[in-house]
């Protein structure tokens, strides 16, 4: 894609297939921090170490929009997803849902808002109660939030949702272990959808599934989004899957946002060296392209989240790093329309790999 085409598609969302809806955000996360205290080194230690699993992340999410979240294991994707639903306590920041700060709500108010916000997990079977029938699993949220709903209505709704997610409604009395991984994920989706939520957080929903089943579930999530104007947060370490389903993508590194952009600018013109490395690392299912491509191979491992490097967290593995990066934490630079990257050198080309 040329630069001009890129800029215009970023400005005019109607030119891309997966168009990001605009207007007022449904969810607005502001400077969110989730810090976990590490056990003290000894009983009388005055100093305590913290893992800054999420460290100052802000973003908006619109109706009908999918926000992809990518990054290596341990970079804080799941923690962020869970903190948004208050499944784990946030340390600081704001989570504004339809104009109201969720972190300021009392328990019972929060519980009511939770009807609008659901989550689905990576391991489909482990997240379903093995002793409940499929019908009871899908009905549970309905019964919890609408205790007065007549049983016949509950059953009708459950059957309707089973059909929506591609399960034969006659299987309503079966148990989870009788289903395959893909079917269990459909059950999880039906359970999440039965209250007609506005937001679904998908934490690696297809990572445990085979390729042929994975595409079925991606199609299902996209269909539900279109029909119900769902907002999706889609967490995954698979950059190809994220590209397919997302309108916008955030890249995290050690709890920090390093780059965010709409889908095409992020994949066609990534500005942060980490994003560039991540994308170049994806093995392409195309022998000629895979063998011809220049891979940016990062040296070293992810630093410990307890004692991250000074300055830019990524500098210890970054091919572009200079002395400045050790001293100065890079701000999120505006590098294009809706496109921000936290790198001092976002505008300079990647150095050629050193000859061996």
């Amino acid at each position, binding site marked *: 894609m040329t630069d001009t085409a890129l800029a215009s598609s970023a400005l005019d969302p109607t030119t891309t297939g997966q168009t990001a809806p605009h207007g007022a955000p449904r969810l607005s996360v502001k400077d969110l921090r989730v810090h976990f205290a590490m056990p003290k080194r000894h009983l009388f230690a005055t100093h305590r170490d913290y893992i800054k699993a999420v460290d100052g992340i802000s973003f908006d999410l619109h109706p009908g929009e999918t926000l992809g979240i990518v990054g290596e294991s341990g970079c804080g994707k799941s923690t962020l997803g869970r903190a948004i639903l208050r499944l784990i306590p946030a340390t600081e920041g704001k989570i504004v849902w339809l104009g109201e700060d969720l972190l300021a709500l009392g328990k019972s108010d929060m519980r009511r808002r939770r009807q609008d916000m659901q989550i689905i997990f990576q391991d489909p079977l482990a997240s379903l109660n093995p002793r409940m029938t499929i019908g009871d699993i899908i009905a549970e949220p309905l019964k919890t939030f609408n205790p007065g709903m007549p049983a016949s209505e509950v059953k009708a709704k459950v059957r309707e949702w089973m059909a929506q997610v591609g399960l034969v409604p006659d299987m309503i009395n079966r148990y989870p272990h009788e289903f395959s991984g*893909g079917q269990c994920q459909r059950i999880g989706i039906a359970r999440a959808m039965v209250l007609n939520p506005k937001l679904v957080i998908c934490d690696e929903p297809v990572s445990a599934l*085979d390729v*042929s*089943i994975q595409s*079925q579930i991606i199609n299902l999530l996209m269909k539900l989004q279109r029909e119900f104007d769902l907002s999706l947060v889609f967490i995954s370490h698979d950059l190809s899957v994220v590209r397919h389903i997302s309108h916008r993508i955030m890249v995290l590194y050690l709890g920090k946002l390093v780059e965010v952009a709409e889908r095409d600018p992020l994949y066609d013109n990534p500005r942060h060296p980490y994003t560039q490395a991540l994308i170049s690392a994806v093995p392409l299912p195309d*022998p000629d392209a895979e063998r011809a491509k220049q*891979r940016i191979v990062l040296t070293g491992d992810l630093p410990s989240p307890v004692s991250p490097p000074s300055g830019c967290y990524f500098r210890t593995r970054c091919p572009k790093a200079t002395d400045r990066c050790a001293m100065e934490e890079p701000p999120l630079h505006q590098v294009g329309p809706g496109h921000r990257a936290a790198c001092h050198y976002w505008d300079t080309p990647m150095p050629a790999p050193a000859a061996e």
Partner: protein
Amino acid sequence: MTEVPEAAAVGPPPAAAAERPTVLAVDGLNTRFDTPEGEVCAVNDVSFRVREGETVGIVGESGSGKSQVFMSVMGLLAANGRATGSVKFRDQEILGMPPQKLNRIRGAHMSMIFQDPMTSLNPYLTVSRQMTEVLVQHKGMGESDAEKRSVEMLDLVRIPEAKRRIRMYPHEFSGGMRQRVMIAIALLCQPDMLIADEPTTALDVTVQAQILELMHDLKTELNTAIVLITHDLGVIAGLSDRVLVMYAGNIVERGAVREIFYGPQHPYTEGLLKSMPRLTGTEQTELPSIPGQPPNLQHLPSGCNFRPRCAYAFDRCRVEEPAQRDIGPGRAKACHLDAL
């Protein structure tokens, strides 16, 4: 038949490859498991060759029998499993060989690495101990020579500060480094064949890239034959010379890597390739997908195993199981259709 576009040589030219000596010859391998619910046919009539210096990719969905083929080859089947047929390593029959005899081949001439390196590394022994032991046992080396060679091997797989790190325990390494240690151990005796079962599946994409780069270098530097088992077509595309596609315990298609990717001839291979989301290309709101799910190995459908999910299925597919047939040099498929 779909034309495979001409391109820069990928892997050895077919003629040269066919002339190379065979390292492993598997013929009519069947692997069965006895379970309380009946017999599980995990591997059905599988035959293939691995030649010196080539990389063979084995791809298929989970449960398709990829691992069990090589557990049978290595004599590592679970107690309720039984393998029949023929497995020849350098012309010597090894299927059913007593473990003591097999041990002289395993580890020294062929070795295997697994998805989770922690399951095959001993958490209570230093890396040094685990490496030198192999050399002392198989090569009769003295301790200090063995240690020197082990450090060289860790250098080769690019473990920084190998001299110091070799004294550490497995849990003190990151996941990617543990996998590199496993590869180093597997390569210690310079085996003729390395079997890598999902070697990067548990790793982050950045670390996966390091391991793939390493395997690529080893392939060219050491001329070891590599069997690469994975469900990830991307991993297969970059490293393999030839590819075997498995479905429900059968090899359903085989061919050179470019033939498989650019001109798949079995509906399952075609479906797999189409259902992968890509990093580039035109937008599509709907991903093509293969309907249904892989069959239960205890209740296989009549005729072709893939028939219930196949868009091309016709009457014959219901009544007759397709035999594998040649469709070109080194190219075969198990499908009644003449062409896709």
